[in-house]
């Protein structure tokens, strides 16, 4: 009944291909982490660094999902199930960041500062 029974032979070569994909991705991820570490110390424009860091993390995030977690090889319904949660979470985070503003804070009431 499970996926593997009917495709046991084809799977071995499929697994081989996946194995190579995994190794490559692992190396890429390690490299990216190194780049991020170096990037923050470089004397370049802050906004550029921020944008690059966010892009690199997003790449790491989605590539682990696509390859290590197999979503690329699996049925669409799983991408939809996860993607809906991800979209709602992202939308909420973005909305909250826009709504919460320093202008509304009553700094008089905060004894900690």
């Amino acid at each position, binding site marked *: 009944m499970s996926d593997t029974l009917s495709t046991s032979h084809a799977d071995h070569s499929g697994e081989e291909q996946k194995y190579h994909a*995994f190794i490559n991705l692992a190396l890429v991820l*390690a490299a990216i982490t190194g780049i991020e570490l170096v990037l923050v110390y470089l004397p370049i424009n802050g906004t550029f660094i*921020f944008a690059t860091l966010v892009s690199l993390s997003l790449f790491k995030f989605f590539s682990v999902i696509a390859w290590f977690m197999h979503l690329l090889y699996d049925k669409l*319904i799983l991408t939809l199930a996860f*993607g*809906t949660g991800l979209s709602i*979470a992202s939308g909420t985070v973005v909305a909250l960041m826009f709504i919460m503003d320093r202008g509304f804070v009553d700094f008089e009431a905060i004894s900690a500062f």
Partner: protein
Amino acid sequence: MSDDAHNNDSHHNLMVNNKKLLMWLFLGSDCMFFGTMISTHLIYRKLYPESFDPTSLFSLELTSFSTFILLMSSFLMALAVSAMHKGDIKSFRRNTLGVIFFGLIFLACQVFEFTEFVHEGLTLNSGTFGSTFFMLTGTHGVHVAIGVFWLTCMYFYSYTGKMDPHESAIDVEVAGLYWHFVDIVWIIIFTVIYLIEFIK
């Protein structure tokens, strides 16, 4: 069509395994869970950027190292799942042990880091930064610990002889999904809590 509708290995209309669908739904829910905590942290950093400067406390080298460790553990986990699909229990055991080992190293780094911070004066009670930092990284650490526990149980279970590769491949895959998710949440946390504080 077979009627073993209660056999959790079954999958029917959309040909997606029940357990796998369940885990992806859980992970979608967990996105919202971590998303809420991350947005709390970001909101308070937006409101009070001058209240605390973590760059003197954070050791980017240590945190990059633990990030690297977790990424590599994810790689080993993918290999473990692959091994189980091929029916190679010995390879599965080796890789799973690797994941457990790396996971423990990650946890050790976290514990070391937290202890350092507490000594330096950053605790749960240190204003909004302390609250959000420790709750977020602490919850993530608990997720890692649960994953380590799960994989350890699986590792020992593989020695009982009750683990048939074809039946259990899905269970290993589901554990793998959880572990990878814990890794990708850390990728976000690393960027959003640590790295961006260092941008001038």
